[in-house]
């Protein structure tokens, strides 16, 4: 078997251990970037502005940067671990190898929920956007948003079903366009090219911190929305040509892109829109960048940002379907969930059953729940996951110190990033508690019940030793 070339055309996705059809290794670093940034960039087009409502414009900026630190830690930690654990399922597979099966099961569910909810939120936004376009073009009737919401989910599920390369190439193109749209808006409204329309000082006069400092803490809740989902790059691990190089590169390039995009977005929107309007994402500004473009007086900008918003929601929903189905598939493959989900399509090489199964779930959320609730559930699942990450990396370094296994990337200043991340997660839990305490308790209650169910019932169907698939030495201390 030593001569098997797993990257060759005929042997692709097929290995010596019984895999007849596996996922296809076709992606490069640009696809990883597109997957990570594509999922998140929609957060700049909608959702982040709830942070403004929670504490005012300055609070949103502070939250933006603190959340930026949080996610930089996430990206660094994730890059190190994933450059060694290159399998579909990402953090789920990491947890399985480093912390233990129950943790892995929980992480797998966090991932699936965070992404499926985000997908639903995107579909809602896309439907709303089409509705706005219909009123702007003078449609007298009341447009039914439901068929468009369903179409978005169906089309992207179909794309995902048909193959990963086309899916993520599509993502690369529309993500790039959406990112360029933000840059163009910044350049043309900030006064760098032509006349500027920014009036930060005048708009914030008398409303610097409307809730005082507790508002800054509260804003952290939606501050996560600027970056939520960047950790999803790891889901592509089994489909990337050289995971040890492409994953850290794509992820770290992604977080840098997002830090720029998030700050520019804050700058542009808060310089044009009054904070009460900007901060109300339901009755006020649903799509703040688009609203900013409307006030710029330029029709070209309105169209560009309208298209940018639509593309961003599509890219995000697309990446979410990709990631949620990979996590669900990986759990099925290990029998953490019914093994039926662990199937790969023989022709398209995608986890087709997982993709199909998650479609109706996403539709229920998209058609049945209000946007800020959906976003909150997505954020909560993400937050639980980020709290797991520092525990994960501390245990990883303890069980396998640097010299025992080779890493594609080593994150600096360990354990500082892990501790910073843990503190920021604590602050964000408090922020969610202010106002969404009930959901927080309901969510954790759910995870406790599911954990007990897994430990006492579901785990019996899982083979013990074989689920540890990495060629690592025995962990220290066991």
């Amino acid at each position, binding site marked *: 078997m030593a001569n098997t070339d797993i990257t060759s055309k005929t042997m692709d996705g097929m290995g010596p251990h019984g895999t007849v059809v596996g996922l296809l290794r076709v992606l490069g670093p640009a696809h990883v970037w597109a997957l990570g940034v594509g999922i998140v960039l929609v957060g700049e087009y909608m959702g982040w502005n709830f942070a403004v409502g929670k504490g005012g414009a300055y609070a949103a900026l502070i939250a933006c940067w603190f959340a930026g630190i949080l996610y930089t830690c996430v990206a660094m930690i994730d890059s190190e671990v994933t450059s060694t654990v290159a399998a579909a399922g990402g953090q789920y597979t990491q947890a399985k190898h480093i912390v233990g099966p*129950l943790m892995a099961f929980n992480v797998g569910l966090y991932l699936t929920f965070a992404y499926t909810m985000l997908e639903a939120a995107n579909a809602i936004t896309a439907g709303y956007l089409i509705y706005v376009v219909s009123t702007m073009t003078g449609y007298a009737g009341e447009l039914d948003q439901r068929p468009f919401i369903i179409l978005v989910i169906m089309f992207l599920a179909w794309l995902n079903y048909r193959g990963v390369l086309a899916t993520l190439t599509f993502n690369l193109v529309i993500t790039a366009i959406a990112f360029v749209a933000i840059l163009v808006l910044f350049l043309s409204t900030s006064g760098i090219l032509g006349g500027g329309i920014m009036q930060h000082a005048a708009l914030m006069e008398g409303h610097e911190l409307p809730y005082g400092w507790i508002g800054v803490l509260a804003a952290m809740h939606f501050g996560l929305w600027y970056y939520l989902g960047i950790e999803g790059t790891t889901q592509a691990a089994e489909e990337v040509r050289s995971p040890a190089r492409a994953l850290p590169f794509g992820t770290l390039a992604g977080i840098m892109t997002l830090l720029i995009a998030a700050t520019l977005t804050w700058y542009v929107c808060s310089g044009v829109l009054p904070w009460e*309007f900007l901060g109300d994402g339901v009755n006020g500004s649903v799509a703040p960048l688009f609203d900013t473009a409307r006030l710029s007086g330029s029709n070209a900008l309105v169209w560009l940002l309208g298209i940018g918003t639509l593309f961003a929601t599509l890219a995000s929903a697309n990446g979410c379907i990709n990631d949620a189905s990979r996590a669900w598939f990986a759990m099925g493959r290990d029998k953490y969930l019914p093994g039926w989900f662990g199937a790969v399509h023989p022709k398209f090489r995608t986890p087709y059953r997982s993709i199909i199964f998650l479609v109706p779930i996403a539709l229920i959320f998209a058609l049945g729940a209000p946007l800020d609730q959906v976003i909150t559930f997505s954020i909560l699942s993400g937050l639980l996951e980020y709290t797991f990450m520092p525990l994960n990396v501390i245990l990883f370094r303890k069980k396998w110190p640097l010299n025992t296994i080779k890493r594609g990337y080593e994150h600096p200043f360990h354990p500082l990033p892990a501790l910073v991340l843990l503190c920021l997660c604590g602050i964000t839990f408090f922020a969610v508690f202010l*106002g969404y305490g009930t959901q927080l308790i309901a969510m954790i209650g759910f995870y406790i019940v599911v954990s007990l169910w897994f430990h006492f019932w579901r785990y019996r169907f899982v083979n013990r030793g074989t689920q540890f698939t990495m060629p690592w030495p025995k962990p220290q201390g066991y």
Partner: protein
Amino acid sequence: MARYKAPVQSKASQIFDVIFLVVLTLGALFVPLKMGLSGAAKTVAEPVANPTWESLGQTPAQAAQYEALGYDPASAHDLILARFDYSFTAGALIAMIVVIVAYYVLMLKFSETEYREVIAEKFDGK
């Protein structure tokens, strides 16, 4: 140590497990929503009768932006004056901390037992 051999799960049992998970998920999402416990609603504490931009606390620059967006003082009234209520009790905060910490402790403890079994079978079992 004897290798653990997982039983094969029947089709019906697989379907039941999936339904169980879905029902639980939808419950966690929609029960708080339906019971009206979802919180975080903004309320207008002190409504202003016959609002003007000045009485809503808006400077001329701010008022100009609202007008550009198509609002007048009456239609912007609720949007501008609605506020979150961030008051909470120490009891609720402590309850939340206890629940979160208990959750992670429970999970790490169970995971550790299961993990020791995995490592033992993988590295010592052969």
